[in-house]
């Protein structure tokens, strides 16, 4: 599977399934990323998203982690982006908690 994967400053990864991008008509992620105030790290190369900067620069903070690419791809693209942002120790908390959080319960 052809994919673009890179790490971000806060400790997480962004993965773009480029096979899905080939048939995408909007390329919404690139437009979003290049909007004013955004990270401006994505560009189109051979019809699919590519990084404008090196992996190191992106990880150092060139990616502003606004999450716009993933959310816009979900609405206007082919749902090709997965941003994974772990919260260290949160899983430990949830495992050790005697009560379930409210989002897992029914009103």
């Amino acid at each position: 599977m052809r994919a673009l994967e890179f790490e971000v400053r806060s400790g997480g990864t962004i993965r773009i399934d480029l096979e899905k991008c080939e048939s995408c008509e909007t390329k919404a992620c690139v437009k979003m990323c290049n909007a004013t105030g955004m990270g401006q790290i994505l560009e189109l190369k051979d019809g699919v998203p590519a990084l404008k900067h090196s992996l190191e620069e992106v990880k150092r903070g060139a990616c502003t982690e606004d999450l716009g690419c993933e959310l816009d791809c979900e609405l206007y693209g082919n749902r090709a982006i997965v941003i994974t942002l772990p919260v260290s120790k949160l899983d430990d908390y949830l495992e050790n908690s005697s009560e379930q959080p409210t989002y897992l319960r029914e009103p």
Partner: protein
Amino acid sequence: MARLLEYQGKALFKRQGIPVPEGRLVQSVDEAMNAIDELGFPVAVKAQVLSGRRGKAGAIHFAEDRDSLSQAVRELLGKQIQGSPVEGLLIEEKAEVQKELYMAVTADPSTRQPVGIFSPKGGVDIEETADTEPAAIFTTPIDILRGFYYYDAMDLLRQVGGLESREMLTLANLFTRLYQVYREYDCKLAEINPIALVEQGAMALDARVDVDDDALSRQTTLDIDFAEEAGERAATLLEIAAATIDESDHRGTVHFVQTDPDASYARTAGKIPVGLDAVGAGTGLTIMDELVPLGYYPINFCDSSGNPVGSKFYRITKVIMAQPQIEGYLFVSCVSSQQLDNAARGLIKAFKELYPRTGGQPNIPCVVLFRGGWDDVAVDLFREHGISDGRWIKVLGRDTTEKETAEIFDALYREWKKETGGLQ
């Protein structure tokens, strides 16, 4: 500030040559019985919690034999001392004390340098002594570039009066060692209360060591988790998780503290526990002021300021929503230049992951208020993603005050409760 437990503080004292009673950390009756084989009776059994005044809180027992030791351990382990569960006990030899004194090194914000503090009134709250007997407190400023030497300590101790020269020599020696603890471990406070004069000299009967948060990255040997200051209790696991969010990312901050970790205060006071995220601490306090009279109690305080990146909002929303007791959630921004569309994206991603079946529409009453930079975009994003259509969420814009926000939340909560009966 990262505060060490007594046994951790004493380990640092010992490393620096400050005598402490021989002791063992135990977590069960069996371990206590093993420890006593090495220590012998009589012993002090001390709950390892961060709260002060442990003696008054019943957190310190004494044992003369195996029966009383076993009883003390059973009584203390698992007990709540001022809101903190007792998970460990320090069992240590009971010292034959001749005199109890006070000694500390701390930072003096008014002079921006360390200060050495000594009092012949040990074993009592130093703040209390400062109020009732200020003349019994002796201080000396410390030039951090020059250091603190034996003769500096002697100069201070000579002013005290009532100390024998042999005692002064011992105490001056310990004072310089305490200063070394303060410097070496980047402390905000290194305190011995009481320091006891015993037959062999002097020893630290208690230890309070507060390490500066900002230095934790270089204090790797201490093996302590950073968390926001939460008063006289240990950080909760959720606070420790929240503190990792800022760890490697300087772009904005999320300060999260559980004001009522198990919601016991809220319930006792007849209030409904809710989760809160505020952009701006002042706004956080204002919305709390509006919520409390209406019957709600934010069981956490959170200030997400300095224009955090969207990923920080995502993470902190997951932390706040992980509190199992909350029956509602509010995100409230102050009017600022903070880029609120980033906040909105973080919240939307979190909501979509937490509520996948409904596409992010929550199952408890939620109110989000966007006021400030890109607030209109933030409101639109919630609409575009279909979350605003949710029955139990209201997305508000810049023309809403904190008071109105609290009232809107109240109306939404009542409707939710009436219709659903609340959470199972």
